[in-house]
């Protein structure tokens, strides 16, 4: 693994009101890796993911201690719009905006402006190609994004995230609503994307973590139980709870 660090998380605690979904998390995330995060529901996986681009603070009663560094800078000192552009999210459900296919991808780029029509068209095409959906939509860019199938919508959402030139992509259970074939396509896209991006993947599907993750982290009740190379986690986990979870004994 490269010795630089993308994210450094130190003693991170998060509260929403009285609820304490993340407890004393310490971890590093390296460039160009796929880090899978597994664990049962309510183990704090998604909260952790949403911390990385400050989506958690959209909730009124959010509170945190500890710190998260992105490229060696505390994320609280980074302009939040810049951070969210650099650290993109693909949500659990395909959530296209109520716009055309083209406008969905162009949206983020438009928001920070300064592009003419030609450049925009190029960016959109490029992003759709990277998300492996260009061939399927190139003749219907002006149609509503809601006319696409679920799997296509999810790849459109990936393209939308790519269009704003992030360097980290957060996937929040991106295949939970998809059939096996669409899932395979999304996974294929992820594996190719890791050459240029750092990927954090939260998944409920343990096999998916084993298939695509370089390293795997296991969360339980808001605590990081174990984090190691994916092979190690799945063959010789250090903690009995990790072993129990990946064998399907609970969760």
């Amino acid at each position: 693994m490269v010795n630089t660090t993308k994210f450094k998380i130190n003693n991170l605690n998060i509260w929403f009101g009285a609820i304490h979904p993340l407890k004393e998390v310490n971890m590093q995330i390296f460039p160009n890796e796929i880090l899978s995060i597994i664990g049962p529901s309510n183990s704090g996986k998604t909260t952790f993911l949403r911390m990385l681009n400050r989506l958690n603070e959209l909730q009124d009663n959010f509170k945190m201690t500890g710190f998260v560094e992105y490229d060696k800078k505390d994320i609280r000192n980074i302009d939040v719009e810049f951070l969210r552009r650099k650290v993109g999210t693909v949500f659990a459900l395909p959530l296209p905006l109520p716009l055309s296919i083209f406008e969905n991808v162009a949206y983020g780029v438009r928001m920070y402006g300064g592009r003419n029509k030609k450049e925009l068209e190029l960016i959109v095409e490029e992003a759709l190609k990277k998300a492996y959906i260009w061939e399927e939509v190139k003749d219907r860019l002006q149609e509503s994004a809601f006319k696409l199938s679920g799997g296509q919508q999810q790849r459109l959402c990936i393209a939308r995230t790519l269009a704003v030139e992030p360097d980290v992509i957060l996937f929040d259970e991106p295949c939970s609503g998809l059939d096996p074939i669409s899932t395979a396509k999304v996974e294929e896209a992820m594996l190719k994307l890791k050459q240029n991006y750092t990927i954090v993947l939260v998944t409920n599907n343990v096999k998916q973590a084993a298939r695509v993750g370089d390293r795997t982290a296991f969360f339980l009740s808001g605590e990081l139980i174990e984090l190691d190379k994916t092979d190690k986690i799945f063959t010789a986990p250090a903690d009995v709870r990790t072993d129990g979870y990946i064998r399907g004994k609970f969760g």
Partner: protein
Amino acid sequence: MRNTKRTQKIAFFFLFLATLLVVVPVGMIVVIIVQKGIPAINWQFLTDVPRQGMRSGGIFPAIIGTLYLVGGAIIFALPIGLLAAIYLSEYSKENFLSRIIKLAIVNLAGVPSVVYGLFGLALFVVFCKFGASILAGSLTLGIMILPIIITTSREALESVPYSFREVSLSLGASKWQTIRHIVLPNAIPGILTGTILGLGRAAGETAPILFTVAAFYLPRLPKSIFDQAMALPYHLYVISTQVPNVDEKIRYGTALVLLTLVLFMNLVAIIIRYKFRKKKKW
């Protein structure tokens, strides 16, 4: 078994009866007004000033006055109402104070219109020294319809799915960009509904304009927003109760014009709303 069926039939009957009770009076009002008002409608009635102590001639100044008042009220109330709604739904934190404010606004919609009239008299006519004028009347009507516009706009904004906002923010859009490009466009149909309700109410109310603008008899058009003006609802009141021997068809004709005006404004808004709905992509 048979018992439940009979209960169901009886229930359906009463539900249907209740619906009928609502529809029949409305239908009758429209039929009677159209029947009795149509004979009065001609070009002179619509374009001439009232003559012979309002017993003949037309109602043109009252039509124009009402249009001015409704237009003025909307120009004043829509931007302010919309901005307030955006603040309440998007920016204000959920706490005791914001709940009190929201509750107060909902309750303001139920305040009797004559109270708004008195308020307008004290604030705009006397204190601001606008006198009885189109300006004072428009502002009074505007204040009266503000709660309607705020409440319906707020509901329209809040009905835009939260996930759209989150997606927009996660792409690096600012909060205002999210509101401007995602929330507002999808809330426009609902906001227009509020505006329609406001328009109809502003056009039809008599009490708020009674002290603030309405002229008893002014057979010319207003020259500026500081002029008094005639208005259809007040004119209708005057010729129905204050002036003896006014031909019935003139009264019903005036009512018909007012009704048509309100329905026409509603129609325009409904068409705009329909156009936006068709563009909606979810």
